[in-house]
């Protein structure tokens, strides 16, 4: 039951009893009265937005249990209010071979066939016609005069609806709340990320300023090598002075002599002559208590101490 309009898209009239049809392009969809509930109301309200708030309560006692969406438009002084199940319509569309991505616009038959006096035959057994300005379905057998569905005569109204694919799982308000939470989370995360990025940039700037202030080499590899060399020098010089201090502090007896002090090729040497065993012991004890590793040797009158620095 497809009819081509003089519009951008083809139009499909969808009823639960419509035949299956494969669609591989976008189409406009007109919903049969079998797929929605409609009421015509005269309300002491001027604007559609005021009526929208009342829609669930208007249908409260009429609708069977389900997840409904609502729509309303104004015609003259009257409001036409609609209730429909998104999932039921989407399931019907899928059954008829129309996938969601191929749906351009969705209309109610109520708004698209307005002002028709004659009944319209939608299939072999059913027709639809207006009774008290409401388009209703009824068996064709009860209708005396009807004419076949002719889409050529229809020009689309502005009254479209958007089908909510997950409306039966989460309602729009909840979706908006969840989305708002995510947006807030995204804003917080983005702000924190921005702040941290600024901090990283600040630390990098501080580091560059430190390099400039200390006149350091451009890479830490070079600086570490310099530091290692300087530490070695410092440790050797400290150890050298400690070793000399121990030797010069040794209490020698009258005949005991310090003959030579020498530091060359990272080795410190002290050579004594005529040292008694007690003096040797005292010097060795001092070296040990100063944590200085040493080697000592004795040759005839000479006693020699070597400290590797």
């Amino acid at each position, binding site marked *: 039951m497809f009819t081509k309009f003089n519009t951008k898209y083809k139009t499909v009239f969808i009823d639960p009893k419509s035949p299956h049809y494969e669609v591989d392009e976008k189409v406009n969809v007109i919903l049969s009265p079998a797929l929605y509930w409609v009421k015509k109301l005269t309300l002491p309200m001027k604007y559609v937005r005021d009526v929208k708030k009342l829609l669930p309560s208007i249908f409260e006692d009429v609708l069977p249990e389900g997840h409904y969406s609502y729509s309303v438009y104004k015609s003259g002084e009257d409001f036409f209010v609609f209730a429909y199940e998104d999932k039921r319509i989407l399931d019907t569309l899928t059954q008829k071979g129309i996938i969601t991505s191929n749906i351009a616009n*969705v209309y109610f038959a109520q708004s698209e066939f307005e002002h028709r006096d004659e009944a319209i035959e939608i299939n072999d057994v059913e027709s639809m016609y207006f009774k008290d300005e409401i388009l209703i379905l009824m068996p064709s057998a009860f209708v005396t005069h009807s004419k076949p569905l002719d889409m050529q005569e229809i020009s689309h109204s502005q009254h479209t609806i958007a089908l909510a694919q997950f409306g039966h799982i989460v309602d729009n308000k909840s979706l908006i709340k969840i989305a708002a939470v995510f947006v807030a989370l995204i804003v917080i*995360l983005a702000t924190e*990320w921005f702040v941290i990025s600024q901090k*990283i940039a600040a630390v990098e700037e501080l580091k560059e300023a430190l390099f400039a202030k*200390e006149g350091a080499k451009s890479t830490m590899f070079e600086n570490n090598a310099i*530091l290692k060399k300087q530490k070695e020098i410092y440790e050797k010089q400290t150890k*050298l*002075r400690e070793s*000399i201090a121990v030797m010069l502090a040794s209490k020698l007896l009258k005949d005991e002599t310090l003959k030579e002090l*020498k530091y060359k090729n990272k080795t410190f040497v002290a050579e004594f002559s005529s040292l008694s065993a007690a003096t040797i012991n005292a010097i060795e004890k001092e070296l040990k208590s100063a944590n200085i590793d040493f080697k000592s040797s004795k040759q005839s009158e000479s006693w020699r101490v070597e400290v590797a620095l």
Partner: protein
Amino acid sequence: MNRLNPLYIGVGLVLLALLLLLKLSSAKEELLLAKADYKETSLTLGEISSLSSAYMSKDEVKKSLQRILSQPSLKSANIEQNIKNNTFFLHSSSMDKEALSSLMGKLLNGAYNIGAFEIKKLSENKASLEVEIKW
């Protein structure tokens, strides 16, 4: 049905939030590394700076030694001075023990990088001396 599918918006928001979480996590890690790196750099450069100033520079060594050697007690020791590359050489084939003690006391207590030295006792009051001071 031309409006954007809410599922796409939802998936987009979740993906964006996840992406930002990952970015934030790596940024936090990067900040910690940057801070640790800054701290380490600061320590290293601080140590280099203090160790550099622990020993005298070429000019400081020259000036300081000239001042020490010009003292009356050391003038008579006839200490030879020689500079080669980055080393200051001091040599005396014979100096008395007071002068030696004075000079060595100043060298060992001063901020000199002593590269080598040799002191040999010649007699009860005399000794020879060779010292290399680097910068």
